[in-house]
């Protein structure tokens, strides 16, 4: 687990890299390519202390990027659905278990996992933070979803964090609101 000093230090590095990569508010980078378009939301796994610290750093840094804290519960997931409905691309930092669930929920909104950092496997060190910043800046190279789907362990017990990006695809979007009769 990071100490506060380490987290703050890493957060500062994260902030500077993120700034350089150009992440920021909604729609601040018009005209980008599909892979390069701006990120709508940063998802943070509430069940880990470190992402919470990082979320606080992002917020304290005055970024306009909305930070959504995720717990795998009914109340939070309703909010998650609303965020996904309005988003085109989202970035997250989470356990493999949370990513596994979010990925499948997001499938129904037309999202696909297009990037995931292996370098977060040993904790959110500087390399991981650089990857996260690259995801936020839309500069991380995309990978094909099938290889990504096979490549991570959907666990929380391993204590590992994954940085990732999901983008809305041209595929089916099942969750367009439930209909009452």
């Amino acid at each position: 687990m990071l100490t506060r000093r380490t987290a703050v230090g890493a957060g500062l590095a994260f902030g500077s890299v993120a700034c350089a990569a150009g992440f920021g508010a909604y729609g601040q980078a018009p005209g980008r390519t599909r892979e390069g378009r701006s990120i709508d939301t940063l998802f943070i796994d509430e069940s880990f202390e470190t992402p919470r610290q990082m979320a606080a750093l992002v917020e304290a840094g005055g970024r306009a990027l909305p930070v959504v804290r995720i717990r795998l519960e009914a109340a939070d997931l309703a909010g998650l659905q609303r965020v996904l409905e309005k988003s085109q691309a989202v970035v997250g930092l989470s356990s493999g278990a949370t990513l596994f669930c979010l990925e499948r929920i997001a499938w129904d909104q037309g999202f696909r996992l297009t990037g995931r950092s292996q370098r977060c496997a040993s904790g959110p060190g500087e390399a991981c933070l650089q990857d996260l910043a690259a995801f936020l800046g839309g500069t991380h190279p995309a990978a094909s979803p099938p290889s990504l789907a096979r490549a991570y362990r959907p666990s929380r017990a391993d204590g590992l964090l994954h940085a990732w990006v999901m983008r809305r695809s041209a595929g089916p979007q099942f969750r367009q609101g439930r209909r009452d009769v």
Partner: protein
Amino acid sequence: MTMKLPQNVSQADFTAALKAFAGIVGDQWVFTTDEDLELYRDSYSLMWGEADERTASAAVAPDNADQVVELVKIANQYRIPIYPISTGKNLGYGGAAPAFAGSVVFDLKRMNRIVEIDERNGYVVVEPGVSYFDLHKYIQEKGLKLWIDCAGPGWGSLLGNALDGGLGYTLATYRSHFDAQCGIEVVLPNGRMMRTGMGALPGAKTWQQFKPGFGPRIDGLFKQSNYGVVTKMGFWLMPAPENHTTGVVTIPRFRDIIPLVDAIGRLEQSKIVQGLWNLSSPTTGTSGDGGPGGGASKQKDSKILAILNDPGGVDMDKLDAAAGAAGIPFWACEFNFYGPKKLIKAQWDCVRDALKEISGAKFKLDEIRALPLSPEELAKMRDAVTLGIPTLKTFDLGPMLSYEGEDVVGHIFFSPIIPRTGEAAIEAMDVFATIARKYKLPYPPVQFPASMFERAFMYVVALPVTRSPTVNAKIREMFRELVLIAAERGWGEYRTAPAFYDLIMGTYSYNDHALLEFLETIKDAVDPNGIMSAGRYAIWPRHLRDAKG
């Protein structure tokens, strides 16, 4: 890209069928690309990436039951094998992938209407795409005084979970989800729509109030089968209770489980205990499989740990002695109670009266809390499914990280039903602990049975799934061994993943497989073209039985 074809279907016919499907649902709801079909693979498949992995050739997503009728007619015309799914998240017992490779998945997620909900009579009618999250949210938004009984992962479909024989965590009447259903609308394999029970009466006012209907009660034919596409289903819902609490009884010795289970059985059969109860062990530090409550602290006593970690197995007599010396009870049994305070207190008095005969039993009733709980109180709970609140916290629990040097990417459940006696529980613990040691499975040395079913125990063994064909082949053999060992003892599985349908149905072989032969006779009668969910729960249509020899 080469399009995958269903078996025995020509390219021309498949193309024509897909075009006809698109004519019903729209082009955007017919999926044939690799990227889209990737979503219909079973993430927990033990045959991932192997030639025998069962994958779909295409997927079609209708919006309503009338479209399902038309799609089924087209499938018959071109002899296209189809495989309906509700939300496709039945992980651990199979996902969205078909039982017969090359089938076209009918993805019913878009059919997500809550057709009717009746607070006064306590029921709901839903389409297949309605998840536990959806219904819970709807009830909250409308302020209805109703509870749902949800499966562990809340993203599942009420309808799909019931058809698969799934379970929940509240009162016994509602926990067995198929038993809680009342009224089915189904599109038969010939494309004809049918309603069961009172729903067969045009304008029926009691479709969701009277299960038997008139004539044979055939609802069960649609559970774990392939006789139609269920497009609506009614469920009885529980009135929101006023209060909830848990009470814990600790019992000192291992073999005290025998009188414990007998006494609880009488309370349950008398409908005095109706909430879920869950076994854990302060001695072994093991939680039960029955639900989210009753968590046990990790054992730290060195003498007890030495006995638990004996590579030859746990000597229960030695364990009892060591635990007794340390003043640690073997069993903790946690009961869930719901309702008015005076009812909860009366139920607890009955539990005390019934269990006080067990020497050394101790009792602790927690604070009776008014419902609904505040968000702060809910946040303190390990899981809220015992309060009818869906979550995905079950995905946090997996203890297996690697097996045979491979990352564990999922699990499949081996779930035998064993008698509701302490003797059977002890036997099952021993049998499955022996297998776990043999295969070096990363489990606690002793695992406990779950009590979700009213009159029988369920033993749940989660076997690891990897992405290594070699390791997965070994796990398939392990699963096979477990099934056969269980069958030798008269224990059968209640549910399984598609890869093991045939294996397990093969154990239900009384009188030269009379049950399967009956099911196949029905199959041939209602689905002569064999288009509907071929192979689901080992029911194969005639032409594929002939091909298999």
